[in-house]
Every structure is written in structure tokens, then in C-alpha cells.
């Protein structure tokens, strides 16, 4: 904890010139209230001091009585979370952009402006993000007073986007496309086989979960949030539970903690193997796809054996877990881990030594560590570029506090490195499963939870298979939450795929896209768009221009 408090002290020092009040809602958190006009300066100071990274921007509508909208800029360094809190009047919500210091803030700012109607001054991209084209420009879904019984539509038709545009072909990928098992709509402009521009339109899977949670009670929300994503449902529920339990000041029994952790690792196993298969399929290597998915069934069997379900295993309840581990489960888990370990070694050998496959992965989609920092990527995508960014290591939670995780890092930054990171993580997860089972504590599975949750705010960060998952939970003291904000890893990672696509042959695009393991369902509970400069389509792009575009596009 000393390291964390040192970091927080440092953050307080950096922001002293602008801070109006400093509070510590939790031991690892620092809230600094500042004036909205000081925001760019304070952010620039944090950036100049290299203090952490921008994890999320949470917007809160404080209601008609208060008349203000509040924005929280969460910065994370290790286990420490410092938040800059600013407010702006509801009637004319306006905040300065911090994209100059943090280019990665662009997507967060756009999310906020669409959902809460905040105008960001100086933000580079103000196009609609994830709501349909015919969504009324005056209706902001996350404001408390929006009337959702109305359709909130205006009569606009989207312009047709397919086909030729000027001199260049547009290759549309999605929302129904074999490379994507989930909907997202990408458009790549190509000159011959080379990609020179990339745009994405998300929101096909945008269901509006963040609003829906405000209309359901704490327990119902658990099941709703689980269904943000079918691949990483457990980790979403875990992040939510951790946040709510913090608010309710409930301690989860150690056995339940271990079981949660165990499921998180099983989830990582099945998610990474799923990814390995899909990525191989993108490269036209269907035999590896089939093999990976065949072996993945072992993990699915384990999940089913313990929880009764293959996909939404729904292990968590508020205050603990539902399922206990019986002795036969432990044997099955140990055997399963041994099998996956053996297969992972084989796959590691395969993807690193198959000459034809290596031609598709080595040197493709290279992202340097500096680029990764600027774009703000998380999870295996960041770790493939030599950045140690793993919440399990930096800010251990649940049983990770007792069983430390060895971070898996590769430095090449190309697709091959991302393959290596994920396959080596399979091995690490198998090791963790063994350690967890060895140290499985005895005792109860659940602690009683109150029906109403004490008013307050909590932040929980967990490491999903795709990277850091950031949850902000706010309770007003009632039976329903006041605000839950989930910042998913794909939101941070997707921009990197678009930037890395530029200048690559079309054939590499599906692999680069899948390389970050995008999860649009996660993303689209709220979503983002990233556009190339449409007016420039007819010109030849120089390398310098491409590079500049790559840098600017992230802002």
C-alpha cells in the first residue's frame, strides 16, 4: 500500500495548483475537484509527469434539482486511481477537450457528448458515435429526464456508403461479414490491395444497457451486466459485484473469492482459445481453428460441470458465489489444466515455427511501445508491445492478492507477439488454476447483502481476457443504482487496429482487426466511431501524411 499512497501523494502534488478539494473515498483513490477551465492544464500536468494513463471518463447527470452534469476523469497508475472531477451546467453543458494531452480521450469525449449532451470544445471529432442516424439530436439517453417512452427519432436517412468513392474502392467489412462474428461496420478504402483509409461505425449491438441498469434493481442488474458480453460474462459480473460489495461494505468469504478467481481464469482460457481459433481462421488456417475449438471444449465442459452452463455460467451473486467446488470438480480441473497446458505448448510451437503462418504474422501490424502508450491500448494488445499493463499484477484483487500473477510480455509488437502473449497466458492461467486449487480456503460461499446499497461511489478494475475492465458504480442509497459506467477494453484497443491497418495489404486487415480481439458486444453498450478525413479520399497519401493521420486519428 505504501507504493499506492506514494503515487496518490504525487498526484495530489501535481494537481495542487488547480485542486479546490482533495478527498480519498477509498484507500487507493483520490478525487480532485477542479474548475472546468483548468481541466486541460491539470491533464497536461499529469501527462507531463507521466503519472499513469487515462482509464475512463465517466459522466454523471446530477439531476434537474442540482442542475449540473459532472464528469470524472479517471487516471490509473498501479493500484492508484486519481479522478479529476469537474462540473458544468446542465442547460449548457460545455467542457474543454483534453485530447491535446491525451489523444485517447477522443473516444471517451464522444461517448460522453452523445450520451449526456456535453459539448467538448476543441475535440477533433464530433460525428455521431453509436446511436442510429435517425436518433434525435436533442435526446441524450443517459440524462435522467429523458422520456424513453417516445421513439426519439427524427426523419433522416443515412447516405449510402457502399461501392466506389472517388478514385478509391471502399471495401466494406460488416456488419454481416464472415470475418466478424459480431457486428461492426468497417470501411477500408483501398488503392489496389493496399489500405489507405479506415473508418468504423459501431452501435449495431448497442442495446443501451447503461440506461437499462438504472431502471432495474441491484440483483437484476447483475444478470443484465453479465449479458453485456457472452465471452467475458463472468468478468463483467465480477467487476460489478466488487464495486457493489465495496459500497455495501460487505466482505466476501475467501472461498468465494478463490472460486471467482478460478472462473475468471477458466474464462480467460476459453476466451483465448476462441481467439486463437478465430485468428487462425482469418489467416485461412482452418485446421488450427478446428483444433483450437476442439480443445476449447475441454474448458467448456469444466465450466458446465461446475456451473451447469457453458456460456453464461453466472457464478457470481452479490456477496459471494452460487456454486461450490466438489472434490470431483477439483480432479477434473487439474486434468483439464494439464491437457490445456500440453496443447498450449504445442500451439506456441506451431504459431512460432510454421513458416507459412509466420509469413502472415511476423512484422504485420507492428505497434511500438510508444504508440501503444499514445493510443492507450490495454490487455494482451499492450502486453504484446512490451507494456506491462495487467490489473492482476498492478492492482491485485480477489485471490490474486494471495496468488501473484506473472505478467506475460512480448516486445516485438507485431501479430506474432500478440499470438505469443495470449498462448503464454494460457500456460500462466493453467498454473494459476493449480495454485488456486492448492490454496482453496474452506468456509462459507456467501455473505448476506442488504437490499438497499449505501449511497456512494466505487471503482472496480479487473483484468478481462481482452484487457482492463473499468467499472464505476454509483448508488443513491436506493434499490436501484444511480449510475453504472463500464469502460470495456475493446473501446481502448479498437483505434489501434484502424491505425495499424493503414498502409497494409487488404489481406492483413482481418488479422489485424482480430489481433486486438475486438468485442463489439462489450463495446456497444456504448460505442465509438473513428473516421478518416472523408474529403481527402481522392488524393494520393504520402507516407508522412499517413503517419500524421495515424497520430491525429487517435485524438
Amino acid at each position, binding site marked *: 500500500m505504501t507504493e499506492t499512497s506514494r503515487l496518490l501523494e504525487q498526484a495530489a502534488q501535481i494537481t495542487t495548483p488547480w485542486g479546490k478539494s482533495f478527498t480519498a473515498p477509498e484507500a487507493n483513490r483520490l478525487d480532485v475537484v477542479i474548475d472546468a477551465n483548468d481541466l486541460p492544464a491539470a491533464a497536461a500536468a499529469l501527462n507531463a509527469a507521466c503519472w499513469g494513463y487515462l482509464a475512463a471518463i465517466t459522466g454523471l447527470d446530477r439531476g434537474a434539482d442540482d442542475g449540473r452534469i459532472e464528469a470524472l476523469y479517471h487516471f490509473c497508475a498501479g493500484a492508484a486511481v486519481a479522478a479529476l472531477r469537474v462540473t458544468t451546467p446542465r442547460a449548457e453543458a460545455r467542457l474543454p477537450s483534453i485530447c491535446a494531452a491525451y489523444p485517447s480521450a477522443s473516444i471517451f469525449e464522444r461517448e460522453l457528448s452523445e450520451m449526456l449532451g456535453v459539448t467538448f470544445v476543441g475535440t477533433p471529432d464530433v460525428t455521431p458515435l453509436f446511436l442510429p442516424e435517425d436518433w434525435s439530436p436533442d435526446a441524450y439517453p443517459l440524462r435522467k429526464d429523458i422520456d424513453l417512452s417516445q421513439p426519439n427519432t427524427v426523419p433522416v436517412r443515412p447516405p449510402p456508403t457502399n461501392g466506389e468513392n472517388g478514385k478509391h*474502392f471502399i471495401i466494406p467489412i460488416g456488419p454481416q461479414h464472415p470475418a466478424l462474428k459480431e457486428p461492426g461496420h468497417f470501411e477500408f478504402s483501398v488503392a489496389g490491395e493496399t489500405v489507405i483509409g479506415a473508418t468504423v461505425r459501431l452501435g449495431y449491438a448497442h442495446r443501451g444497457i447503461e440506461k437499462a441498469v438504472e431502471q432495474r434493481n441491484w440483483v437484476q442488474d447483475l444478470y443484465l451486466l453479465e449479458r453485456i458480453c457472452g465471452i467475458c460474462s463472468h468478468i463483467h459480473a465480477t467487476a460489478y459485484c466488487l464495486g457493489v460489495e465495496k459500497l455495501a461494505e460487505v466482505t466476501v468469504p475467501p472461498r468465494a473469492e478463490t472460486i471467482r478467481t478460478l472462473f475468471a481464469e477458466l474464462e480467460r482460457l476459453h476466451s483465448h482459445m476462441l481467439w486463437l481459433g478465430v485468428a487462425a481462421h*482469418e489467416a*485461412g*488456417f*482452418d485446421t488450427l481453428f478446428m483444433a483450437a475449438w476442439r480443445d476449447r471444449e475441454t474448458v467448456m465442459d469444466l465450466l458446465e460441470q461446475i456451473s451447469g452452463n457453458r456460456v453464461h455460467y453466472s457464478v457470481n451473486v452479490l456477496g459471494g458465489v452460487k456454486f461450490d467446488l466438489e472434490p470431483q470438480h477439483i480432479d477434473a480441473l487439474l486434468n483439464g489444466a494439464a491437457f490445456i497446458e500440453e496443447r498450449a505448448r504445442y500451439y506456441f510451437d506451431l504459431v512460432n515455427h*510454421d513458416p*507459412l503462418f509466420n*509469413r502472415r504474422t511476423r512484422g504485420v501490424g507492428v505497434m511500438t511501445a510508444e504508440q501503444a502508450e499514445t493510443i492507450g491500448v490495454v490487455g494482451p494488445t499492450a502486453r504484446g508491445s512490451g507494456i506491462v499493463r495487467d490489473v492482476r499484477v498492478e492492482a491485485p484483487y480477489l485471490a490474486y492478492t494471495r496468488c501473484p500473477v506473472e505478467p506475460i510480455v512480448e516486445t516485438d509488437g507485431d501479430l506474432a507477439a500478440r499470438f505469443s502473449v495470449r498462448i503464454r497466458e494460457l500456460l500462466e492461467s493453467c498454473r494459476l488454476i493449480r495454485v488456486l486449487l492448492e490454496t482453496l480456503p474452506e468456509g462459507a460461499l456467501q455473505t448476506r447483502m442488504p437490499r438497499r446499497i449505501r449511497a456512494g461511489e466505487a471503482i472496480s478494475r479487473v483484468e478481462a481476457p481482452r484487457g482492463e475492465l473499468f467499472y464505476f458504480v454509483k448508488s443513491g442509497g436506493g434499490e436501484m443504482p444511480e449510475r453504472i459506467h463500464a469502460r470495456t477494453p475493446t473501446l481502448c484497443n479498437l483505434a489501434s487496429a484502424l491505425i495499424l491497418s493503414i498502409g497494409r495489404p*487488404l489481406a492483413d486487415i482481418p488479422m489485424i482487426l482480430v489481433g486486438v480481439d475486438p468485442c463489439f458486444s462489450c463495446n456497444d453498450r456504448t460505442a465509438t466511431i473513428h473516421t478518416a478525413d472523408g474529403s481527402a479520399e481522392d488524393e494520393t497519401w504520402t507516407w508522412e501524411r499517413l503517419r500524421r493521420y495515424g497520430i491525429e486519428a487517435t485524438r
Partner: protein
Amino acid sequence: MNAFDSLTGALAALLILPGGLALMLIGLIYEWANRKLIARLQNRLGPRWFQPLADVIKLLAKQSIVPAAAHPTLFALLPMIALASVLTSALALPMLGLAPAYAFPGDLIVTVCLLSLLTLCLSLAGFGTDSSFGLVGAMRALMQLFSYEAPFLLALLGPAAAAGSWQIDVIMRYAEANPWMLFTQPLGFFVAVVGLMAKLEMAPFDAPEAHTEIVSGPLTEYGGRHLALFRLSKDTALVIGLTLVAGLYLGGIADPLTFLVKTLALLVLITGVQALFARLRIDQSTTLWWRYVMILLLVQWLVMMVSRG
């Protein structure tokens, strides 16, 4: 033998054996063998034996949609030309132990060219539908055609040079009487097999129809009976290609049994390769053909010329 008899005989040969229906049926069965084998290599059960037949009949019975952007006549004509050219290319081939229906000196070149007409038709189909996937697919198909066509033809001309004839059945008879050219011209055999895979757009040379990038490539807009004809052409081309390579390099195909055993053995070989590799990018496959395969072939030809003195 009067004129009428020879005419009906020729018609039967054209329509049923060795041309036409029988050829297409063999093609469908070979497609099944290919898919089943891949499935088994991937640890799956795979399709049932009548699967390709059911696929084709279903496609034939389905509604055919001609996209608004496509030329209706061309759209319908291209698959027909493709099938016709592939079937025509079978005329000079001895198959199932039968003599070729129409052999003439130099028919080897004609056969290979007629096979290429299939690729051309596919590309034109892609260009004709005004879909970006079709266009990119067509471009890739042509690019690949230009890179493998010359080496493939040269690889088939190796046995022809050894036999001293450019007539397929003459070369095959020479192949029966002499040691397998697989052993005398191993590099040529290798190139012929790889060239055949490229011709049939099998993995790792399936960039023109890479599903994950450009949906179904040139055939993205094709469905119903037009697609059925293209599938039939491809299946037939598979049989013809296998017959050519097996006949020239594996010591001829004198009787039906040898024909089946040798072509199927070759099919097993290319299916194995197909299942084993990831897809080559189009630039990588072009490089492969011109930089490596071409050199292998030149070495082969050099060795042949030197040994002949």
C-alpha cells in the same frame, strides 16, 4: 462402321462417357472426397457422400437473382461458358481407361488453355457484378493466373518433351512404358501439383476467394443455378487436373482401376497440403511463383537438357 454409328458413338462419348454427365458426377464425388478428407484431418466427421450432389441440385432448384448492377445476359452466360470450356477440355483426355474422344497433336496446350478459361470466366463474373468483393476477388484471380500459368504449363511440358509429343494420350502411353516421371522429373512434379492447387484455388492459394476478407470473391453475388454451374465447372476441373498430372507424372492411367487409384492418391496428397497451411497473401503467392517455383522449373529443364546431351 457406318457414319451413323460413329456419330452416335461420338455423341455418347461427348455426353456421357468420358465427357459430360459422368465427368460431372466423378467431379462431385471427388469434391466429396476432398471435403471429407479435410474434415477427417480436422477431426470432424464431415459431409455425407451425396453432399455435393444435394448442394448442386438445391442450387439448381433455387431462385436466381441477377443483381441490378450486373449485365443479365453476361451474368447468365459466364457460368455456361465456364462449364462448356471445362467439359471441352476433357475431350483429349483418356479417362477411366477409355480412349480420348478427340485427340490431336498439341492438345495438351489446348486442354490447359481451356482450363484457364474457367478462371477467366470467374474473373469476368467478378468484374461484371459491380461488388467491391467481386472486383478484388477477380483482380486476385487474374493476378494469380498470370503467376502460376506459365510454370504450370512448363511443368506439364516436361513429360511432353521426354515423350517427344504434345499429344496427351501419346505422352501417357510413353509414361506407361517408361519409369514414372515423378522420379525422373521430381521438381516438375512438385510444380505441377502446386500449380494444380493454384489453378483450383485451393488453400494456400485461395486468396481470390478468401472468405474472411472478400466474402466469396468473384462469386459473392452469384447464387442459385448460376452458382451451381460454376461449382460443377470447378469440380470437373478438379478431375481433369488430377487426370493430367497423374497421367503424365505417375506412369499413365491405362485402366479404370489405375485411373481411380492414381487420381485419388494425388487428391489425398493435395488435400493434405490444403489442410496443412495458412492462406498466402496474394503478393506472397505471386512472389512464390516467380521467385522460387520458376527457378525450380528452370533447374529441372536444365537437368533434362544436359542429360539428353
